[in-house]
């Protein structure tokens, strides 16, 4: 286990210090976008389409403009005058800001009403008279490529059908050959449903343009403020906005989970509105709007797993149909359209794999939000973990034993996966065995055998996942060509206290605490003496933001390296103060001392003070350092989760009796914060496994667009999470750390699905797609009895 190098007062790595940011949140003093109030500020409300696919025949503004306080109604035609009615997406597609002729999904933004307050704006939005001519939408992605399907994107040259792209990786011929000749092949079509991040705070912005200074300030719920600044400069450069005149401020954010990475059309409209009107414009999405936009997942995966008769895995093949909605707006900064999906070979050692994917357009809101997931890892992990369980069931082998026999061994790292990743480190066997011990796996197997004799339904499900996080190395990632590094800038003040700024942006992750702990670890300055600042592009160093569990792997590493630069400078100063040569100075946390004479020492605070007051001749004064860190590789956190469920035959009710989660995220900065991340992530894992999934009717209407029907689990639905760790440090990260926040969200769903399906196995049920609800279980039981 990790041994703390610092005292509790210093609070370096491994200390469960309380979060520095919590006092203001708990006292209601958080400062969110909707708290921003500027003089003369106007409010914007969007008019949205009731239809999934329709021609816009006319938009009549008159009645709305007649309402006192309504100042403007902005349509796509208005934006078209400035060529701002379309915007590019990160993946070389285009997205409407506001439509000029056609709406492509239900709840799409049709026009914007600007008024003096929100109440008036909402009345104005209701008074806008839009005439539509509804058309038959494509809702089922499997029908998108039919010959008679309407061409959804005639605006795109060369687009002859509704396919967006085909992607593949691996050796198709060899994989097919191995599968054709294998003793055992299991197959399944697995769907991961469309889900929504449902963060507590919805999206919003306050855009404020000053005609005199020509400066645009945008307060924005964004996980990536610098990237947004550059995007705005590139998209709106032609109307005179240039990057030094754009300031993006991400204030406190009430949960992001990937849903606050995209640029939503209303942001652009608000910026256009303040630019034209010259007054600040606020747009705050309401809950109903939030719940019908910005989706994740929606992969239909045809999987095949081949093995020898005694269960040695030989090959995996997956062919996916991806429903992207009407545009590919995936918040994916990797160089691959499917992100990290090729991690789908999992934690197992075999040679042959092939993955391919066809993405299609449908009349749905754009998907591609990477919900607490590094770009399609959740899909990948669900596919392989379900298939491994299916293989175990098919050959009658204990799924834990099957995994243990197929794991990549500890000594095989760094491991080159069949689809081209280099896994950095892991000890999968130790992690699974720890989970089995904590659960009492063998006892539960016995209990299950007994219960099955009594006709009761009890299941045990395992997921031993490998994650891939920390976007990322510039060879694999960029945003508009910008490498996915991240940054830290440290200023230590004369009195030995510090201010550090980062290119990332916390949305609840606890950066104000964990970054301070990293610096405390490296410099010996107590974490309480270090202020952390993020989110303002005028002050923070350039960075790519916080998502994909990338902050610790990138900005955390930058912090450590910047601190080490300071330590090197401090060594020179200490040598000068102690009148010895630099080679004679040694460092232990918080102080420099003379080799062999530890009583001759200078604390870090003394050295910092000297950097301002008693500088060695010729040395640059001050005590500041900056580092931009482009990681050499991603980090590969992993874990073993085991879930025990009982299912009631009569009602389909599912009772999660136990859930044990052992994570390996390398060295841990703050165990309490990691514990909190894991609890939250597991709850967001049980969500799609048992509760959440956006449903559409044949007309493309969202059927569950409210919290009454979109079932976000609460503490009541959450089982008692039992957590633990193995620690296998990342060999390439300066702190040996890996990302962790996504692991539980990625790893939990297959463990739960495997447990429920295992419970139902005696009835002959081999697979159920998530969310697995009591109603779905009951229907399956009826169909099998």
């Amino acid at each position, binding site marked *: 286990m990790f041994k703390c190098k610092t005292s509790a007062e210093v609070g370096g790595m491994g200390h469960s210090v309380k979060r520095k940011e919590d006092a203001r949140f708990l006292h209601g003093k958080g400062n969110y976008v909707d708290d921003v109030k500027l003089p003369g500020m106007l409010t914007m409300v969007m008019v949205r389409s009731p239809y999934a696919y329709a021609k816009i025949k006319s938009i009549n503004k008159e009645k709305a403009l007649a309402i006192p306080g309504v100042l403007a109604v902005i349509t796509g035609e208005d934006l078209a005058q400035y060529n701002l009615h379309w915007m590019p997406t990160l993946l070389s597609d285009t997205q409407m800001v506001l439509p000029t002729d056609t709406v492509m999904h239900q709840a799409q933004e049709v026009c914007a009403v600007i008024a003096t307050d929100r109440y008036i704006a909402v009345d104005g939005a209701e008074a806008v008279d839009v005439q539509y001519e509804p058309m038959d939408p494509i809702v089922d992605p499997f029908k998108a490529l039919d010959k008679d399907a309407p061409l959804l994107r005639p605006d795109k040259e060369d687009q002859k059908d509704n396919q967006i792209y085909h992607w593949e990786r691996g050796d198709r011929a060899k994989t097919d050959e191995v599968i054709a000749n294998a003793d055992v092949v299991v197959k399944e079509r697995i769907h991961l449903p469309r889900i929504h991040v449902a963060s507590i705070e919805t999206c919003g912005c306050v855009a404020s343009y000053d005609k005199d200074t020509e400066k645009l300030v945008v307060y924005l719920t964004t996980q990536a403020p610098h990237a947004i600044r550059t995007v705005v400069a590139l998209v709106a450069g032609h109307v005179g906005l240039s990057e030094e005149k754009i300031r993006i401020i991400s204030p406190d954010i009430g949960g992001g989970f990937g849903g606050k990475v995209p640029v939503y059309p209303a942001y652009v409209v608000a910026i256009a509105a303040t630019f034209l009107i010259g007054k600040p414009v606020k747009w705050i999405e309401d809950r109903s709007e939030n719940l019908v936009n910005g989706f994740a997942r929606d992969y239909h995966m045809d999987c095949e797993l081949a093995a020898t008769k005694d269960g040695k895995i030989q090959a995996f093949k997956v062919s996916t149909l991806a429903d992207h909605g009407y545009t590919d707006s995936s918040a994916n900064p990797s160089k691959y359209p499917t992100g990290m999906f090729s991690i789908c070979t999992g934690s197992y050692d075999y040679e042959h794999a092939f993955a391919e994917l066809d993405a299609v357009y449908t009349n749905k809101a754009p998907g591609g939000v990477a919900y607490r997931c590094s770009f399609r890892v959740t899909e990948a992990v669900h596919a392989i973990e379900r298939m491994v369980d299916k293989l175990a069931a098919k050959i009658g082998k204990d799924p834990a034993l099957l995994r243990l026999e197929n794991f990549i061994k500890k000594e095989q790292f760094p491991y080159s996966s069949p689809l081209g990743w280099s896994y950095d480190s892991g000890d999968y066997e130790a992690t699974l065995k720890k989970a089995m011990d904590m659960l009492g796996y063998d006892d539960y197997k016995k209990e299950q055998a007994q219960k099955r004799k009594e006709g009761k339904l009890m299941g045990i499900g395992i997921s031993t996942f490998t994650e891939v996080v920390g976007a990322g190395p510039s060879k694999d990632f960029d945003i508009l060509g910008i490498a996915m590094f991240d940054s830290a800038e440290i200023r230590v003040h004369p009195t030995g206290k510090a201010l550090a700024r980062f290119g990332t942006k916390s949305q609840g992750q606890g950066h104000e605490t964990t970054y301070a702990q990293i610096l405390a670890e490296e410099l010996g300055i107590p974490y309480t003496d270090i202020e952390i600042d993020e989110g303002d592009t005028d002050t923070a160093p350039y960075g790519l933001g916080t998502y994909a569990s990338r902050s610790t792997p990138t900005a955390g590493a930058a912090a450590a390296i910047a601190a080490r630069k300071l330590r090197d400078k401090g060594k020179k100063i200490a040598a000068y103060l102690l009148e010895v040569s630099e080679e004679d100075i040694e460092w232990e946390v918080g102080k420099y001392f003379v080799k062999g004479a530890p009583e001759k020492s200078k604390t870090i605070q003394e050295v910092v003070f000297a950097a301002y007051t008693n500088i060695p001749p010729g040395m640059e004064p001050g005590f500041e350092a900056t580092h931009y860190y482009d990681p050499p590789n991603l980090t590969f956190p992993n874990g073993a989760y085991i879930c025990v469920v009982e299912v009631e035959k009569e009602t389909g009710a599912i009772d999660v009796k136990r859930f044990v989660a052992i994570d390996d995220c390398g060295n841990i900065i703050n165990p309490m914060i990691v514990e909190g991340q894991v609890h939250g992530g597991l709850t967001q894992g049980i969500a799609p496994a048992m509760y959440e999934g956006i449903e559409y009717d044949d007309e493309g209407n969202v059927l569950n667009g409210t919290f009454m029907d979109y*079932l976000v689990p609460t503490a009541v639905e959450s089982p008692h999470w039992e957590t633990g760790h193995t620690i296998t440090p990342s060999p390439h990260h300066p702190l040996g750390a890996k990302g962790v926040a996504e692991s539980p969200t990625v790893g939990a769903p297959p463990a739960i699905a495997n447990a429920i399906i295992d419970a139902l196995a005696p009835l002959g049920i081999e697979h159920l797609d998530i969310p697995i609800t009591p109603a779905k279980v009951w*229907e399956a039981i009826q169909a099998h009895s």
Partner: protein
Amino acid sequence: MIPANFTYHKASSLKDAIALAESLGEEAKYMSGGHSLLPMMKLRFATPEHIIDISKIQGLSFIKEEGDLLKIGAMTTQTEMEYSDLLRSKYPIFGDAIKLTADPSVRNVGTLGGNIAHGDAANDQPALMLAMRATVIAEGVDGQKSIPIDEFFHGFYMTALEPTDILVEIHIPKASKHSGGAYHKVERKVGDYATAGVAVYVELDDDGVCREIGIALTNVSAVPMRVDRAEELLRGKKITDDLIGQAGVFASEDCEPTSDLRGSEAYKRSLVDTITKRMLNKALERARQ
């Protein structure tokens, strides 16, 4: 999520409220807790021009036994009922239901009267009222009137109340020595409306014969419904496991669920069967204590 324009009126007494309603006419709506009406207004499904706030009217919040009756004031909140010693000790069916209704913050404000007067078969209290054979006391332009619960629910969001009527009190036959009730609903998650719910209230004589029985269902019909056939089957008999099984089948056959996001019609019928049997057993157990 912002209601259309409306005018707010605060009533200081019943008389005041009824007079306001009479003068404002059809576009006026009473509001007490507001936890059914306000969401509909925010979604602009309901756009009343006038809201008459009756929540500050004194004297409509009480729980007491008087003569042969249990009387509960219409403004009594669900939380007050949940923590009432009288209801906890003698009428545990209320606790069964209230713990499954919405969440604590809603129950702190939502009232018994509102839950019934809204006329929504998805609400939990209507089934309890039917099972316990309550009488609704309302006050209107013509003074006070009593409405037997079986005549109260007319349709989806429609009740026997006239637009100017205010539900003021609920009367329920007082618990006898061998009576007991139970309620359960299956919900998809905490705070949800019922996928299916069943209220059972049973009264036995000294020999254990069923003197009176009420079985009513939540959210499996357009209007809160009583299962007459199952009641007739059990009334006047010693209730056996076979009879309980048969009552469950009757309930599942007679309910009128529709397939929706909560589940298929068949699933809901099956739930009604299962819960009816379980609640009969639970109510009998309580009656025999």
